[in-house]
């Protein structure tokens, strides 16, 4: 297979997913800060929720990472 195209595909896969995940985590963190500023007494609970959300959002980026690693090492 064409090595250049594979490299391009692997790069694109992780780039788009990382952009989306970054946007998602940014939105979640921003809202969490807003909520904490409004109700500082709920800071602990909000932090737990934020971490849970970040884990799930980050998972999408990790899937893309696995796909791009597969592209690089399995389809070379």
């Amino acid at each position, binding site marked *: 297979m064409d090595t250049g195209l594979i490299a391009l595909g692997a790069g694109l896969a992780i780039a788009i997913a990382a952009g989306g995940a970054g946007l998602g985590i940014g939105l979640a963190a921003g809202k969490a800060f807003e909520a904490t500023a409004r109700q500082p007494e709920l800071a602990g609970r909000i932090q737990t929720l934020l971490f849970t959300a970040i*884990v799930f959002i980050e998972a999408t980026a*990790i899937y893309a*990472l*696995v796909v791009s690693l597969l592209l690089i090492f399995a389809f070379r």
Partner: protein
Amino acid sequence: MNFLARLWDAIVGELRVGDIGEAMRDAIAVREAFHFSLLGIRIVVADSVVVTWGVMVLLAIAAFFLGRRLKEIPKGMQIAVEGLVDGVVSVCANAMDRKLAERTAPYVGTIGLFIAFSNLTSILKIPPPAKNPAFAIALALATIFYVIATGIRMVGLKGFWQSLLYPNKALLPFKLLDYMIKPISLSLRLFGNVFGAFILMEFIYIVVPAVIPGVLGLWFDIADGILQGLIFAYLTVIYIGEILENAHEAQARAKLQIRRRT
């Protein structure tokens, strides 16, 4: 400019792109530790399996010596270990009440510590076992079976069935699908994170063998590995909590409907 070019040559030396690829492939390959034959079938034991045995022995010895001669008034190491156990129980208590949390804490704590210590082997330049997808898949499968079994033990078979039907009966296929996606997501998260960090560290070791791996290793070898163990344990708790919550809500709704009818 000339100085920079010479410095670059000194650091990178004779390295070519092809060499990096070759070295990376060498680092990534799953090696065979030893093999034996059982009933004529050749069984290959990979190196990551041997590493997990080492971690198991280490944790078992630690558990044996730390759990011995416990005193009413804690002293020395016992305080630290009690703090750890209390931490695990309070993580479990996020999703369920204290009594149930103390029953799930042993599994959650074990899996968290096991993953954290397996990932920490990369400090010693031993490839972490989680870079082998089999490790991550095995742990994820064990966890999802544990989650379902614990859910059934805590709310009963009927409660588990109700939790599958909870917001709406039409969601049943999706809930069943969810139990297939959960282990995939768990294993891919663990494998992807550790494998990615491992490849990055190998790459940095090859390209810049001094100073920088030490700094980046603080995150990629130590913090990230422990974080993955924590996340895995935390997700186990969340999954169990989800079953409990759905079952309780379903039972509450059933009670409400009976009261309305009468």
